[in-house]
Protein backbone atom coordinates (compact mmCIF):
# COMPACT_ATOMS: atom_id res chain seq x y z
CA UNK A 1 0.00 0.00 0.00
CA UNK A 2 1.29 3.42 -0.95
CA UNK A 3 2.36 5.58 1.99
CA UNK A 4 1.30 9.16 2.51
CA UNK A 5 4.27 11.49 2.16
CA UNK A 6 5.64 14.06 4.57
CA UNK A 7 7.33 16.81 2.57
CA UNK A 8 9.33 19.72 3.96
CA UNK A 9 9.42 22.96 2.01
CA UNK A 10 12.44 25.20 2.27
CA UNK A 11 12.06 28.73 0.97
CA UNK A 12 15.45 29.92 -0.17
CA UNK A 13 16.41 33.53 -0.74
CA UNK A 14 19.92 34.44 -1.90
CA UNK A 15 21.05 30.93 -0.96
CA UNK A 16 19.72 31.13 2.59
CA UNK A 17 16.69 29.50 4.16
CA UNK A 18 13.76 31.83 4.69
CA UNK A 19 10.22 31.33 5.90
CA UNK A 20 7.40 33.56 4.83
CA UNK A 21 4.34 34.42 6.87
CA UNK A 22 1.33 35.21 4.72
CA UNK A 23 3.87 35.56 1.91
CA UNK A 24 5.00 39.02 3.04
CA UNK A 25 7.65 39.07 5.75
CA UNK A 26 10.51 36.71 5.33
CA UNK A 27 13.33 36.09 7.71
CA UNK A 28 16.42 34.00 7.29
CA UNK A 29 16.50 30.88 9.41
CA UNK A 30 19.60 29.01 8.39
CA UNK A 31 21.57 26.93 5.97
CA UNK A 32 19.28 25.02 3.56
CA UNK A 33 21.80 22.26 2.85
CA UNK A 34 22.30 21.46 6.52
CA UNK A 35 18.55 21.49 7.19
CA UNK A 36 17.89 19.23 4.18
CA UNK A 37 20.44 16.70 5.39
CA UNK A 38 19.01 16.72 8.92
CA UNK A 39 15.46 16.11 7.68
CA UNK A 40 16.62 13.38 5.29
CA UNK A 41 18.38 11.49 8.08
CA UNK A 42 15.27 11.89 10.24
CA UNK A 43 13.01 10.14 7.71
CA UNK A 44 11.67 12.93 5.51
CA UNK A 45 9.99 11.51 2.38
CA UNK A 46 10.60 14.37 -0.05
CA UNK A 47 12.07 17.86 -0.16
CA UNK A 48 10.86 20.98 -1.89
CA UNK A 49 13.06 24.01 -2.45
CA UNK A 50 11.37 27.22 -3.40
CA UNK A 51 13.54 30.04 -4.70
CA UNK A 52 12.18 33.38 -3.52
CA UNK A 53 15.26 35.32 -4.58
CA UNK A 54 14.06 38.65 -5.87
CA UNK A 55 16.76 39.53 -8.36
CA UNK A 56 17.27 37.24 -11.30
CA UNK A 57 21.06 37.75 -11.37
CA UNK A 58 21.31 35.88 -8.07
CA UNK A 59 19.43 32.83 -9.34
CA UNK A 60 22.59 30.84 -9.97
CA UNK A 61 23.02 30.64 -6.19
CA UNK A 62 19.95 28.39 -6.14
CA UNK A 63 21.57 25.99 -8.61
CA UNK A 64 24.53 25.70 -6.22
CA UNK A 65 22.21 24.99 -3.30
CA UNK A 66 20.38 22.31 -5.29
CA UNK A 67 23.63 20.69 -6.36
CA UNK A 68 24.96 20.65 -2.81
CA UNK A 69 21.75 19.09 -1.48
CA UNK A 70 21.61 16.49 -4.26
CA UNK A 71 25.10 15.32 -3.27
CA UNK A 72 23.94 14.17 0.13
CA UNK A 73 20.19 13.70 0.15
CA UNK A 74 18.84 10.57 -1.57
CA UNK A 75 15.13 11.22 -1.62
CA UNK A 76 13.12 13.05 -4.30
CA UNK A 77 14.05 16.69 -4.56
CA UNK A 78 11.61 19.15 -6.04
CA UNK A 79 12.55 22.72 -6.94
CA UNK A 80 10.52 25.73 -7.97
CA UNK A 81 10.26 29.46 -7.89
CA UNK A 82 10.73 31.56 -10.99
CA UNK A 83 10.68 28.70 -13.53
CA UNK A 84 9.67 30.37 -16.81
CA UNK A 85 11.01 28.09 -19.51
CA UNK A 86 12.17 24.61 -20.40
CA UNK A 87 15.72 25.99 -20.10
CA UNK A 88 15.09 27.02 -16.46
CA UNK A 89 13.67 23.57 -15.75
CA UNK A 90 16.58 21.82 -17.45
CA UNK A 91 19.17 23.86 -15.49
CA UNK A 92 17.53 22.82 -12.22
CA UNK A 93 17.32 19.18 -13.32
CA UNK A 94 20.99 19.13 -14.24
CA UNK A 95 21.82 20.64 -10.86
CA UNK A 96 20.04 17.68 -9.24
CA UNK A 97 16.31 18.44 -8.97
CA UNK A 98 14.05 15.47 -9.66
CA UNK A 99 10.84 17.43 -10.01
CA UNK A 100 10.26 20.95 -11.23
CA UNK A 101 7.56 23.17 -9.75
CA UNK A 102 5.88 25.65 -12.04
CA UNK A 103 3.59 28.33 -10.71
CA UNK A 104 3.09 31.95 -11.81
CA UNK A 105 4.67 31.58 -15.24
CA UNK A 106 2.36 28.64 -16.01
CA UNK A 107 -0.71 30.69 -15.09
CA UNK A 108 0.43 33.43 -17.45
CA UNK A 109 1.39 30.97 -20.18
CA UNK A 110 -0.19 27.52 -19.65
CA UNK A 111 1.76 25.97 -22.55
CA UNK A 112 4.79 26.03 -20.22
CA UNK A 113 3.35 22.93 -18.49
CA UNK A 114 3.08 20.96 -21.72
CA UNK A 115 6.52 22.10 -22.89
CA UNK A 116 8.18 21.05 -19.64
CA UNK A 117 6.24 17.77 -19.59
CA UNK A 118 7.45 17.00 -23.11
CA UNK A 119 11.03 17.88 -22.26
CA UNK A 120 11.47 16.17 -18.90
CA UNK A 121 8.42 13.95 -18.42
CA UNK A 122 5.04 14.89 -16.97
CA UNK A 123 5.67 12.90 -13.78
CA UNK A 124 8.45 15.37 -12.99
CA UNK A 125 6.30 18.47 -13.41
CA UNK A 126 4.55 19.75 -10.32
CA UNK A 127 1.93 22.42 -10.80
CA UNK A 128 2.06 24.60 -7.72
CA UNK A 129 -1.08 26.65 -7.17
CA UNK A 130 -1.47 29.60 -4.79
CA UNK A 131 -5.15 29.86 -4.00
CA UNK A 132 -7.31 32.46 -2.28
CA UNK A 133 -10.83 31.89 -0.97
CA UNK A 134 -13.30 34.25 -2.66
CA UNK A 135 -17.03 34.74 -3.06
CA UNK A 136 -18.47 32.28 -5.56
CA UNK A 137 -18.87 34.06 -8.87
CA UNK A 138 -19.33 33.29 -12.53
CA UNK A 139 -15.57 33.71 -12.96
CA UNK A 140 -14.71 31.54 -9.94
CA UNK A 141 -17.59 29.09 -9.48
CA UNK A 142 -15.63 26.93 -7.02
CA UNK A 143 -15.19 29.89 -4.65
CA UNK A 144 -11.42 29.70 -4.94
CA UNK A 145 -9.23 31.91 -7.10
CA UNK A 146 -5.71 31.51 -8.44
CA UNK A 147 -3.24 34.20 -7.37
CA UNK A 148 0.33 34.65 -8.56
CA UNK A 149 3.54 36.49 -7.72
CA UNK A 150 3.78 35.08 -4.21
CA UNK A 151 0.11 35.60 -3.47
CA UNK A 152 -0.04 39.25 -4.42
CA UNK A 153 -1.86 39.21 -7.74
CA UNK A 154 -5.37 37.71 -8.15
CA UNK A 155 -5.88 36.34 -11.65
CA UNK A 156 -9.64 35.89 -11.94
CA UNK A 157 -9.05 32.20 -12.69
CA UNK A 158 -11.02 29.48 -10.95
CA UNK A 159 -8.78 27.14 -8.91
CA UNK A 160 -10.74 23.99 -9.77
CA UNK A 161 -10.71 24.82 -13.48
CA UNK A 162 -6.97 25.52 -13.38
CA UNK A 163 -6.23 22.24 -11.56
CA UNK A 164 -8.07 20.29 -14.26
CA UNK A 165 -6.36 22.27 -17.01
CA UNK A 166 -2.95 21.64 -15.42
CA UNK A 167 -3.64 17.91 -15.31
CA UNK A 168 -4.79 17.96 -18.94
CA UNK A 169 -1.60 19.78 -19.97
CA UNK A 170 0.49 17.02 -18.45
CA UNK A 171 1.38 18.00 -14.88
CA UNK A 172 2.19 14.92 -12.78
CA UNK A 173 1.24 16.35 -9.42
CA UNK A 174 -0.43 19.38 -7.81
CA UNK A 175 0.59 21.50 -4.85
CA UNK A 176 -2.50 23.09 -3.35
CA UNK A 177 -1.29 26.08 -1.37
CA UNK A 178 -3.88 28.07 0.52
CA UNK A 179 -2.83 31.70 0.84
CA UNK A 180 -5.44 32.16 3.56
CA UNK A 181 -3.93 29.38 5.68
CA UNK A 182 -0.25 29.91 4.83
CA UNK A 183 1.81 30.89 7.84
CA UNK A 184 -1.16 30.89 10.24
CA UNK A 185 -0.35 27.50 11.81
CA UNK A 186 -4.10 27.03 12.21
CA UNK A 187 -4.47 24.05 9.90
CA UNK A 188 -4.69 23.30 6.19
CA UNK A 189 -7.64 24.38 4.06
CA UNK A 190 -9.35 20.99 4.16
CA UNK A 191 -12.33 21.77 1.96
CA UNK A 192 -10.19 23.17 -0.85
CA UNK A 193 -7.71 20.29 -0.67
CA UNK A 194 -10.40 17.60 -0.71
CA UNK A 195 -12.25 19.30 -3.57
CA UNK A 196 -9.15 19.38 -5.78
CA UNK A 197 -7.91 15.92 -4.79
CA UNK A 198 -11.27 14.39 -5.73
CA UNK A 199 -11.36 16.27 -9.03
CA UNK A 200 -8.01 15.11 -10.44
CA UNK A 201 -6.36 11.70 -10.87
CA UNK A 202 -2.84 12.96 -10.17
CA UNK A 203 -1.46 13.17 -6.60
CA UNK A 204 -2.18 16.27 -4.52
CA UNK A 205 0.20 17.83 -2.00
CA UNK A 206 -1.48 19.99 0.65
CA UNK A 207 0.35 23.17 1.59
CA UNK A 208 -0.15 26.10 3.91
CA UNK A 209 -1.28 26.26 7.50
CA UNK A 210 0.34 23.30 9.27
CA UNK A 211 0.95 24.09 12.94
CA UNK A 212 0.31 20.92 14.92
CA UNK A 213 0.48 17.19 14.08
CA UNK A 214 -3.30 16.81 14.04
CA UNK A 215 -3.43 19.29 11.16
CA UNK A 216 -1.41 16.80 9.12
CA UNK A 217 -3.70 13.98 10.16
CA UNK A 218 -6.75 15.99 9.12
CA UNK A 219 -5.45 16.87 5.66
CA UNK A 220 -4.25 13.33 4.91
CA UNK A 221 -7.65 11.88 5.88
CA UNK A 222 -10.55 14.33 5.59
CA UNK A 223 -8.57 16.56 3.19
CA UNK A 224 -7.81 13.54 0.94
CA UNK A 225 -4.27 14.76 0.29
CA UNK A 226 -1.61 12.31 -0.88
CA UNK A 227 1.12 14.29 0.83
CA UNK A 228 1.39 17.01 3.46
CA UNK A 229 3.87 19.81 3.13
CA UNK A 230 5.31 21.39 6.26
CA UNK A 231 7.63 24.33 6.82
CA UNK A 232 7.72 26.44 10.00
CA UNK A 233 6.64 23.63 12.30
CA UNK A 234 9.84 21.74 11.54
CA UNK A 235 12.18 24.63 10.65
CA UNK A 236 11.99 26.26 14.07
CA UNK A 237 12.48 22.98 15.91
CA UNK A 238 8.95 22.74 17.29
CA UNK A 239 8.58 19.25 15.83
CA UNK A 240 11.02 16.71 14.44
CA UNK A 241 10.22 15.02 11.12
CA UNK A 242 10.33 11.58 12.75
CA UNK A 243 8.04 12.78 15.54
CA UNK A 244 5.39 13.81 13.01
CA UNK A 245 5.68 10.50 11.19
CA UNK A 246 5.35 8.51 14.39
CA UNK A 247 2.30 10.54 15.34
CA UNK A 248 0.61 9.90 11.99
CA UNK A 249 1.56 6.23 12.03
CA UNK A 250 0.13 5.95 15.53
CA UNK A 251 -3.17 7.33 14.29
CA UNK A 252 -3.35 4.78 11.51
CA UNK A 253 -2.09 6.85 8.57
CA UNK A 254 0.12 4.69 6.33
CA UNK A 255 3.61 6.24 6.50
CA UNK A 256 7.11 5.03 5.64
CA UNK A 257 8.43 4.10 9.08
CA UNK A 258 11.87 2.63 8.42
CA UNK A 259 14.70 4.66 6.96
Amino acid at each position, binding site marked *: MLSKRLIACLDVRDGKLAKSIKFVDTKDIGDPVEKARTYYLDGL*DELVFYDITASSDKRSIMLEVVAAV*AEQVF*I*PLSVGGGVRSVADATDLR*LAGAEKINVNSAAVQRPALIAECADAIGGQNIVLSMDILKVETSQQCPSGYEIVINGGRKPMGIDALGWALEGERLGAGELVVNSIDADGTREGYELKLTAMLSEAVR*IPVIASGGAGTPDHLYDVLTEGKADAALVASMVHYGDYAVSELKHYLDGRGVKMRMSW
Partner: protein
Amino acid sequence: MNSWNAHEAVVIIDYDAGNLRSVQRACAEVGMHAAISADPEAVRRAERVIFPGVGAAGSAMRSLARHGMGDALKEVIKAGTPVLGICLGLQISFEFSEENATPTLSLLKGSVRRFRFNRNDLKIPHMGWNEVQVVKPHPLLAGIAAGDEFYFVHSYYPEPQVERDVYATTEYESGFASAVGQDNYFATQFHPEKSGSVGLRLLSKFATWNGQC
Protein backbone atom coordinates in the same frame (compact mmCIF):
# COMPACT_ATOMS: atom_id res chain seq x y z
CA MET B 1 39.35 -13.30 -14.34
CA ASN B 2 37.84 -10.06 -13.18
CA SER B 3 38.26 -9.00 -9.62
CA TRP B 4 34.90 -7.71 -8.55
CA ASN B 5 35.59 -4.70 -6.43
CA ALA B 6 33.84 -1.36 -6.17
CA HIS B 7 36.29 0.46 -8.41
CA GLU B 8 35.81 -1.41 -11.69
CA ALA B 9 34.43 0.49 -14.64
CA VAL B 10 30.73 1.07 -14.24
CA VAL B 11 28.71 2.67 -17.01
CA ILE B 12 25.32 4.33 -16.71
CA ILE B 13 23.66 4.15 -20.11
CA ASP B 14 22.69 7.58 -21.44
CA TYR B 15 19.95 7.44 -24.03
CA ASP B 16 18.24 10.80 -23.47
CA ALA B 17 15.91 9.16 -20.97
CA GLY B 18 16.09 11.39 -17.98
CA ASN B 19 18.23 12.73 -15.23
CA LEU B 20 21.12 10.32 -14.79
CA ARG B 21 23.13 12.46 -12.41
CA SER B 22 20.99 11.36 -9.46
CA VAL B 23 21.85 7.73 -10.24
CA GLN B 24 25.52 8.67 -10.59
CA ARG B 25 25.52 10.57 -7.28
CA ALA B 26 23.87 7.69 -5.41
CA CYS B 27 26.45 5.30 -6.89
CA ALA B 28 29.24 7.63 -5.71
CA GLU B 29 27.72 7.63 -2.22
CA VAL B 30 28.29 3.85 -2.02
CA GLY B 31 31.80 4.08 -3.49
CA MET B 32 30.87 3.05 -7.03
CA HIS B 33 32.37 5.48 -9.52
CA ALA B 34 30.16 5.36 -12.56
CA ALA B 35 30.55 7.08 -15.92
CA ILE B 36 27.52 8.29 -17.86
CA SER B 37 27.92 7.30 -21.49
CA ALA B 38 25.96 7.24 -24.74
CA ASP B 39 28.70 5.23 -26.44
CA PRO B 40 27.81 1.56 -27.05
CA GLU B 41 31.53 0.71 -27.04
CA ALA B 42 31.85 2.04 -23.48
CA VAL B 43 28.96 -0.22 -22.52
CA ARG B 44 30.63 -3.21 -24.20
CA ARG B 45 33.84 -2.54 -22.24
CA ALA B 46 32.11 -1.94 -18.91
CA GLU B 47 32.42 -4.37 -16.03
CA ARG B 48 28.94 -3.50 -14.86
CA VAL B 49 26.14 -1.52 -16.44
CA ILE B 50 23.22 0.51 -15.13
CA PHE B 51 20.26 0.93 -17.44
CA PRO B 52 18.06 3.69 -16.01
CA GLY B 53 15.40 5.82 -17.61
CA VAL B 54 12.36 7.95 -17.09
CA GLY B 55 10.00 9.14 -19.78
CA ALA B 56 8.01 7.31 -22.40
CA ALA B 57 8.66 3.85 -23.87
CA GLY B 58 8.30 5.00 -27.48
CA SER B 59 10.89 7.76 -27.39
CA ALA B 60 13.20 5.63 -25.22
CA MET B 61 13.21 2.84 -27.81
CA ARG B 62 13.89 5.34 -30.61
CA SER B 63 16.80 6.81 -28.64
CA LEU B 64 18.27 3.38 -27.93
CA ALA B 65 18.10 2.55 -31.63
CA ARG B 66 19.64 5.87 -32.63
CA HIS B 67 22.58 5.33 -30.26
CA GLY B 68 22.95 1.66 -31.29
CA MET B 69 22.55 0.93 -27.61
CA GLY B 70 19.94 -1.84 -27.71
CA ASP B 71 22.33 -4.29 -29.36
CA ALA B 72 25.18 -3.39 -27.01
CA LEU B 73 22.93 -3.98 -24.03
CA LYS B 74 21.81 -7.37 -25.33
CA GLU B 75 25.42 -8.37 -25.99
CA VAL B 76 26.69 -7.50 -22.52
CA ILE B 77 23.78 -9.27 -20.86
CA LYS B 78 24.51 -12.37 -22.92
CA ALA B 79 28.18 -12.08 -22.00
CA GLY B 80 27.38 -12.20 -18.29
CA THR B 81 28.04 -8.56 -17.32
CA PRO B 82 26.01 -7.58 -14.25
CA VAL B 83 23.30 -5.18 -15.43
CA LEU B 84 20.85 -3.19 -13.28
CA GLY B 85 17.73 -1.77 -14.92
CA ILE B 86 15.77 1.01 -13.19
CA CYS B 87 12.17 2.14 -13.81
CA LEU B 88 11.75 2.69 -17.56
CA GLY B 89 14.85 0.52 -18.00
CA LEU B 90 12.87 -2.32 -16.43
CA GLN B 91 9.78 -1.60 -18.51
CA ILE B 92 11.49 -1.66 -21.88
CA SER B 93 13.20 -4.94 -20.94
CA PHE B 94 9.95 -6.75 -21.66
CA GLU B 95 8.52 -7.57 -25.09
CA PHE B 96 5.87 -4.92 -25.42
CA SER B 97 4.67 -1.77 -23.69
CA GLU B 98 1.15 -0.38 -23.90
CA GLU B 99 2.79 3.04 -23.65
CA ASN B 100 2.87 4.27 -27.26
CA ALA B 101 2.09 0.61 -28.20
CA THR B 102 5.82 -0.03 -28.41
CA PRO B 103 7.62 -3.30 -29.14
CA THR B 104 10.50 -3.31 -26.65
CA LEU B 105 13.81 -5.14 -26.04
CA SER B 106 12.49 -8.65 -25.18
CA LEU B 107 15.18 -9.32 -22.59
CA LEU B 108 12.39 -10.78 -20.45
CA LYS B 109 9.08 -12.36 -21.45
CA GLY B 110 5.96 -10.35 -20.74
CA SER B 111 4.51 -6.92 -21.30
CA VAL B 112 3.93 -3.57 -19.62
CA ARG B 113 0.43 -2.24 -18.97
CA ARG B 114 -1.11 1.01 -17.82
CA PHE B 115 -2.63 1.17 -14.34
CA ARG B 116 -6.40 1.19 -14.61
CA PHE B 117 -8.56 1.48 -11.53
CA ASN B 118 -12.27 1.62 -10.98
CA ARG B 119 -11.71 3.58 -7.78
CA ASN B 120 -11.01 7.28 -8.14
CA ASP B 121 -8.95 7.56 -4.95
CA LEU B 122 -6.00 5.61 -6.37
CA LYS B 123 -3.86 8.20 -8.06
CA ILE B 124 -1.96 7.75 -11.32
CA PRO B 125 1.03 7.97 -11.44
CA HIS B 126 1.74 5.56 -8.59
CA MET B 127 3.97 8.12 -6.91
CA GLY B 128 5.67 7.86 -3.55
CA TRP B 129 6.99 5.27 -1.12
CA ASN B 130 5.66 1.73 -1.09
CA GLU B 131 6.66 -1.60 0.41
CA VAL B 132 8.68 -4.06 -1.59
CA GLN B 133 7.99 -7.69 -0.64
CA VAL B 134 10.76 -10.05 -1.58
CA VAL B 135 9.17 -13.18 -3.04
CA LYS B 136 12.39 -14.91 -4.06
CA PRO B 137 15.84 -14.25 -2.60
CA HIS B 138 18.32 -12.32 -4.71
CA PRO B 139 21.80 -11.04 -3.79
CA LEU B 140 20.77 -7.43 -4.56
CA LEU B 141 17.73 -7.67 -2.29
CA ALA B 142 19.64 -9.13 0.64
CA GLY B 143 19.12 -7.03 3.75
CA ILE B 144 15.67 -5.77 2.81
CA ALA B 145 13.42 -6.19 5.82
CA ALA B 146 9.65 -6.55 5.92
CA GLY B 147 8.16 -3.07 5.74
CA ASP B 148 11.10 -1.47 3.92
CA GLU B 149 9.81 1.03 1.38
CA PHE B 150 11.22 2.34 -1.89
CA TYR B 151 10.34 5.36 -4.00
CA PHE B 152 8.18 4.79 -7.09
CA VAL B 153 6.99 7.06 -9.92
CA HIS B 154 5.23 5.30 -12.79
CA SER B 155 1.91 4.98 -14.60
CA TYR B 156 2.70 1.65 -16.27
CA TYR B 157 3.62 -1.63 -14.57
CA PRO B 158 5.30 -4.84 -15.70
CA GLU B 159 3.40 -8.07 -16.20
CA PRO B 160 6.08 -10.76 -16.51
CA GLN B 161 5.06 -13.98 -18.23
CA VAL B 162 7.57 -16.14 -16.36
CA GLU B 163 6.98 -16.42 -12.64
CA ARG B 164 10.58 -17.25 -11.81
CA ASP B 165 11.66 -13.86 -13.21
CA VAL B 166 9.83 -12.11 -10.35
CA TYR B 167 11.90 -11.32 -7.26
CA ALA B 168 9.70 -8.80 -5.48
CA THR B 169 6.16 -7.47 -5.59
CA THR B 170 4.41 -4.30 -4.47
CA GLU B 171 0.73 -3.62 -3.75
CA TYR B 172 -1.15 -0.87 -5.53
CA GLU B 173 -4.74 -2.08 -5.43
CA SER B 174 -3.38 -5.42 -6.60
CA GLY B 175 0.15 -6.71 -6.60
CA PHE B 176 2.61 -6.02 -9.42
CA ALA B 177 6.19 -7.17 -10.01
CA SER B 178 8.49 -4.47 -8.62
CA ALA B 179 11.80 -6.32 -9.07
CA VAL B 180 12.51 -8.77 -11.86
CA GLY B 181 15.54 -10.45 -13.32
CA GLN B 182 17.23 -13.35 -14.98
CA ASP B 183 20.80 -14.49 -14.31
CA ASN B 184 23.09 -11.43 -14.48
CA TYR B 185 20.25 -9.01 -15.32
CA PHE B 186 18.23 -7.44 -12.54
CA ALA B 187 15.75 -4.57 -12.69
CA THR B 188 13.60 -2.55 -10.32
CA GLN B 189 10.44 -0.57 -10.97
CA PHE B 190 11.36 1.65 -8.02
CA HIS B 191 14.22 4.15 -7.86
CA PRO B 192 17.00 2.91 -5.55
CA GLU B 193 18.83 6.21 -6.09
CA LYS B 194 15.90 8.09 -4.52
CA SER B 195 15.03 5.57 -1.82
CA GLY B 196 17.22 6.70 1.05
CA SER B 197 19.38 4.19 2.89
CA VAL B 198 17.53 1.07 1.66
CA GLY B 199 18.08 2.17 -1.92
CA LEU B 200 21.75 2.91 -1.30
CA ARG B 201 22.09 -0.56 0.22
CA LEU B 202 20.77 -2.14 -2.99
CA LEU B 203 23.23 -0.07 -5.05
CA SER B 204 26.10 -1.06 -2.78
CA LYS B 205 25.21 -4.74 -3.33
CA PHE B 206 25.21 -4.11 -7.07
CA ALA B 207 28.69 -2.58 -6.77
CA THR B 208 30.10 -5.97 -5.81
CA TRP B 209 27.59 -8.36 -7.43
CA ASN B 210 29.22 -11.03 -9.58
CA GLY B 211 26.06 -11.59 -11.62
CA GLN B 212 25.19 -14.90 -9.98
CA CYS B 213 21.83 -15.43 -8.33
